[in-house]
């Protein structure tokens, strides 16, 4: 039998149903795996006791015939989701000691459906980054790094900001993990680690109880090892929540039922602007391969144009910091987290925020404060919002002639920790293919599609119409089958 930690969610559910193993056994195997991946600095907080008691409760439910759709599946939670009584840090010193008195809607739905929490995993501070290197708790190392843990030849990044979530699945220390995606933070780390990640349509998953970065762009989603698993987990995470004013009141489909494998006649848009200069030959070849796979399965590739693509990053780096500067105003040393005293209230605020926020977060708050300040609001913030409308219109127009869009997930394979760190703009460019999707509020996913010449994973991205995650998943599974990505990282738990 396959090691319990190497099962997919679908296989694990099957094994649990057939009584081949118990949820406690499955969880114990994962708790040991969580210990084994400690050199990679993936977990910020491990919760083995909670995991085992949740697993025990799961076995009891199953014995009574009351098992939920994810019952007994051990998962990890990005440390951006508030979890009742369990430290929630957002990777920041400013949330030092914070233990929420409430549970985020998304995680409460996962527990409702029987999932088991292994712990809270690392991210870029406040989800602001593309490499999981900026957290106060240190950087996460990808299990794809060549060499033995502790004596790595190169320490490869797991991508970000949901890098802990991606790394924990790739290392076989959890069957799935929650992520959040503001500009690519689920899809890019999924691409970098050979895993599957979905950013659902804006409004599909409740944002309530998730530490906010940029509220008009943030969206939670599942990260797993297969498309089918993503469908299972997405169903539990979605759903209307009156506590989030932008949550959309729509029925949640059985996403797994959409995986028919039949994409005959489907029109797949290939945006010509994504062939921008600088796209490596390796990525271009993978993309062409993806187009060929879909064609073989009966789909019809069509060239489309998204003319404002090149402006998406610039618009994003005004809108996201602007919203962040407002959202992060709440960390003032009064109600939760760190307080650094000062001579008066204002000094206390300034000292707390100066010591509590890391460099990248401070940079983004300052940019956001600047573009929202009197005299610059129209020139920067309103201009960016107008360009955002243009980008959305591009997609609306494109979807008149296609049903789904195929692109690469990232412009290159993952880099080593220490590279690209001196120039913030260079780091931002990694998200060039993922950011437009958030600006337009669309669903998208990354599927592992191959390995680069350096032996590191590469992903392909699919972008769908609003609330058409089903087509996305159906096409995603066709790509997955054609790619037959069976590579595992040099280290697995």
């Amino acid at each position, binding site marked *: 039998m396959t090691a319990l930690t190497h099962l997919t969610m679908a296989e694990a559910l099957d094994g649990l149903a057939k009584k081949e193993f118990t949820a406690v056994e499955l969880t114990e195997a994962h708790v040991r795996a969580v210990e084994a991946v400690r050199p990679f600095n993936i977990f910020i907080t491990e919760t083995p006791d909670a995991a085992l008691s949740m697993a025990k409760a799961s076995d009891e439910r199953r014995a009574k015939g009351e098992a939920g759709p994810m019952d007994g599946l051990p998962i990890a939670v990005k440390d951006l989701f508030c979890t009742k009584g369990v430290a929630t840090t957002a990777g920041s010193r400013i949330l030092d000691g914070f*233990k929420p*008195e409430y549970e985020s809607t998304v995680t409460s739905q996962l527990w409702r459906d029987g999932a088991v929490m292994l712990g809270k995993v690392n991210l870029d501070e406040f989800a602001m980054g593309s490499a999981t290197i900026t957290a106060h708790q240190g950087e996460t190392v990808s299990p794809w790094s060549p060499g033995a843990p502790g004596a790595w030849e190169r320490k490869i990044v797991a991508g970000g900001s949901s890098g802990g979530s991606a790394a924990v699945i790739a290392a076989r220390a959890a069957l799935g993990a929650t992520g959040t995606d503001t500009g690519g933070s689920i899809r890019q780390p999924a691409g970098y680690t050979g895993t599957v990640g979905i950013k659902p349509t804006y409004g599909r998953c409740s944002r309530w109880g998730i530490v906010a970065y940029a509220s*008009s762009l943030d969206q939670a989603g599942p990260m797993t090892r297969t498309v089918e698993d993503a469908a299972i987990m997405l169903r539990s995470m979605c759903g209307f929540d009156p506590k989030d004013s932008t949550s959309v009141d729509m029925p949640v489909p059985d996403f797994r039922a959409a995986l028919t494998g039949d994409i005959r006649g489907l029109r797949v848009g290939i945006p010509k602007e994504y062939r921008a200069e600088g796209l490596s030959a390796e990525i271009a070849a993978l993309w062409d391969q993806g187009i060929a796979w879909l064609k073989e399965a009966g789909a019809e590739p069509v060239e489309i144009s998204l003319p404002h693509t090149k402006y998406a990053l610039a618009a994003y780096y005004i809108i996201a910091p602007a919203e962040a500067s407002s959202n992060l105003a709440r960390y003032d040393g009064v109600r939760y987290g760190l307080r650094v005293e000062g001579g008066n209230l204002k000094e206390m605020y300034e000292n707390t925020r100066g*010591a509590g926020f890391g460099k990248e977060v401070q*940079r983004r708050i*300052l940019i956001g404060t600047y573009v929202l300040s009197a005299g610059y609001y129209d020139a920067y913030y309103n*201009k960016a*919002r107008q360009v955002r*409308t243009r980008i959305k219109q591009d997609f609306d127009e494109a979807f008149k002639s296609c049903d789904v869009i195929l692109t690469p997930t990232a412009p290159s394979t993952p880099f080593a920790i220490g590279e690209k760190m001196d*120039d913030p703009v260079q780091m931002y460019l990694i998200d060039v293919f993922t950011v437009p999707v958030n600006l337009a509020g669309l669903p998208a996913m990354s599927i592992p599609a191959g390995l680069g010449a350096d032996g590191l994973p590469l992903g392909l991205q699919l972008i769908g119409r609003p609330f058409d995650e089903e087509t996305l998943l159906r096409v995603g599974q066709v790509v997955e089958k054609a790619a037959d990505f069976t590579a595992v990282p040099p280290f697995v738990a």
Partner: protein
Amino acid sequence: MSLDKATVAKIAHLARIKVPDEELESLAGELSQILTFVEQLNEVDTQDVPPMTSVAAQKLRRRKDEVTDGGYAAQVLSNGPETAEGFYVVPKVVE
């Protein structure tokens, strides 16, 4: 767009973030780099284009103005760095 040290100090003050004087120079450089990067937006014709206010095609819901939650002050205060008698404590603001 290039920001000088004084402007960065002013923004930092508005954002209530203490930035040591010796870091203002390098921060001004980094922020200027980002602002230069975003200036390419001026190439886009946005005449008569409405600024996006909501990406989802729906209006904000309305609800009844009524109390639906609350009554647990101790839990609300439980994470406060300093609290007393049901209040958060802050440095004195009025002499």
